[in-house]
């Protein structure tokens, strides 16, 4: 284990290499360029492949090929590029091809801006591409989680044969923090389904999402839904900090959770009863714990760098048992600690017991 200072994007890239990723296909776009640039330097050192594709569409289809062939494969991009990748993401979900996709999100819609944003939450968690499918979506909250979650993402992608997304943003990607790097892994897990050439196998392996014959498509979808149900039951991750005695629970992920954490630590020093619930998986969403907190009488504030996307999942989880308030900053701006602090204070005072 070595401890080093790294930018979030580079920590993620090195974390991927350490986790045995040996194939990277991507296309330049700010603010994720450190990832392909790092991979271009690093892949040759570990005998891996870095290839700059002609577009995000081509990159994701290369990922489909490499993942289907059994490679541990990564692609990264930022919002407009992630939109282009949706074709391949849907095909990989349908064909059950494992891979990891990183979105270092920026503001939108359209070309948007280069500043950090959390406005791709819907795209990441509610589909993005066509069809009834789900991605496992991780939201790292610091550089160490960039390293830890990318490793976990590869293991889960292969365990479930499903694409996994890491939803990060421009601040998470650029921020320097100390990280502990795990040792380098060479992963060659058994993938009896992969296209390798038959090499004596009696039947060919086929990677395919076409379900044109009879009830094929219904059967495929039932199988997929069973898999998503297992993911929903087993893969929820979150951090709960000081929620037990809290009157108000603030729900935030990624960059906004860092601002919220600073505001909360000041409020706690002032003996305010406020806690943080930080989803680490955005899908599956930590619905159960939110329902339990609502049943215990807590109120909620959702803080996002968007006009309100995750707040819908919080409302669904709470299901009218409690009050949910939203505080958002429009695309490209980050809430200040003072703004969040003031918002929480005023909510606590209007609530009575605070």
């Amino acid at each position, binding site marked *: 284990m070595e401890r080093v200072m790294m930018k979030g994007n580079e920590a993620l890239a090195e974390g991927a290499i350490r986790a045995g990723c040996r*194939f990277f*296909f991507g296309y330049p776009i700010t603010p994720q360029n450190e990832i392909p640039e790092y991979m271009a330097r690093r892949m040759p050192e570990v005998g891996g*492949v870095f*290839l700059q*594709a*002609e*577009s995000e*569409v*081509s*990159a994701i*289809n*290369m*990922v*489909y*090929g*490499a*993942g*289907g*062939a*059994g*490679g541990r*494969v990564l692609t990264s991009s930022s919002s407009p590029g992630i939109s282009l990748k949706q*074709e*391949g993401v849907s*095909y990989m979900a349908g*064909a059950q091809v494992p891979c990891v996709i990183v979105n270092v999100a920026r503001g939108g819609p359209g070309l948007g801006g280069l500043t950090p944003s959390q406005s791709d939450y819907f795209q990441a968690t509610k589909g993005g591409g066509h069809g009834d499918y789900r991605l496992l979506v991780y939201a790292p909250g610091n550089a160490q989680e960039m390293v830890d979650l990318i490793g976990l993402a590869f293991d889960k992608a292969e365990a479930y044969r499903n694409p996994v997304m890491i939803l990060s943003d421009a601040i998470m990607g650029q921020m320097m923090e100390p990280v502990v790097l795990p040792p380098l892994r060479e992963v060659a897990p058994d993938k009896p389904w992969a*296209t*390798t*050439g*038959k*090499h*004596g196998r009696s039947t*060919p*392996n*086929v*990677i*395919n*999402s*076409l379900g044109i014959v009879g009830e094929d498509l219904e059967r495929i979808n039932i199988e997929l839904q069973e898999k998503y149900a297992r993911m929903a039951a087993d893969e929820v991750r979150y951090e709960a900090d000081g929620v037990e005695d809290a009157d108000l629970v603030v729900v935030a992920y990624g960059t906004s959770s860092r601002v919220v954490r600073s505001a909360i630590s000041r409020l706690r020093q002032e003996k305010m009863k406020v806690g943080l619930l930080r989803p680490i998986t955005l899908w599956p969403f930590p619905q159960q714990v939110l329902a339990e907190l609502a049943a215990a009488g807590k109120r909620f504030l959702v803080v996002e760098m968007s006009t309100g996307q995750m707040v819908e999942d919080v409302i669904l989880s709470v299901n009218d048992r409690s009050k949910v308030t939203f505080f958002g900053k429009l695309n490209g701006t980050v809430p200040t600690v003072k703004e969040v602090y003031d918002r929480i204070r005023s909510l606590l005072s209007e609530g009575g017991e605070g």
Partner: protein
Amino acid sequence: MKKIFAYPCALAKKRTHYCPGCTHGIIHRLVAEAIDDLEIQERTIGIAPVGCAVLAYEYFDVDFQEAAHGRAPAVATGVKRVHPEAIVFSYQGDGDLASIGMAEIIHAATRGENITVIFVNNTVYGMTGGQMAPTTLPGQKTTTSPYGRDTATVGYPIRVCELLATLDGPAYLERVSVHDPQHIIKAGRAIRKAFATQVAGKGFSLVEVLSSCPTNWGMTPTQSLNHIKETLVPYYPLGVYRAPEEVTGDDE
């Protein structure tokens, strides 16, 4: 006794869904024969297109990946980079390769990606019911050019071999036809040579095959073959557009 004709090992024993008189089936057979001749069946991985050949993975007895429309060269690139020792080929129609997948084919070619592309040009979108393709001839009637392709408003057909021949990347480019037995034999040799180019590690190979679509041309199978000979071949000249160096896929 010498066996001179047999069912190719690389072809699955399945009945295809192709229309009567469609030459997709002949081209499948030529690909399977090339795989047999070069003894590469166990290490071959095919990429199927979106088009009438979408079910190609059912018809070959080799590993396969079904690609999104036009993306087969990108998918083939991903597969080949994971298994450089495998023989990777894509099988694509003209809508797939020369319209929606133009970026993917040009960049795979210019990278000199060591893959083989079988490009089936029937001047029409077969699978979706006969719409205009980038290869549809001037004046040709299709369901979306009902008055004939008007070059003044929709421009001219794309000649893929000629276009790719402007690049340094490709190792082997040839256009062939399957409208009569002599041309089928020549097409078979070209396809074998393309695979041999890849086996020898020489880089990107593509064989364009002029193919029939009796269903959407509104012709009988025989009329279709004549149409290839009399109308397609003059517009799309047969021949080698890039010759591979020192590759002998030929049996002559």
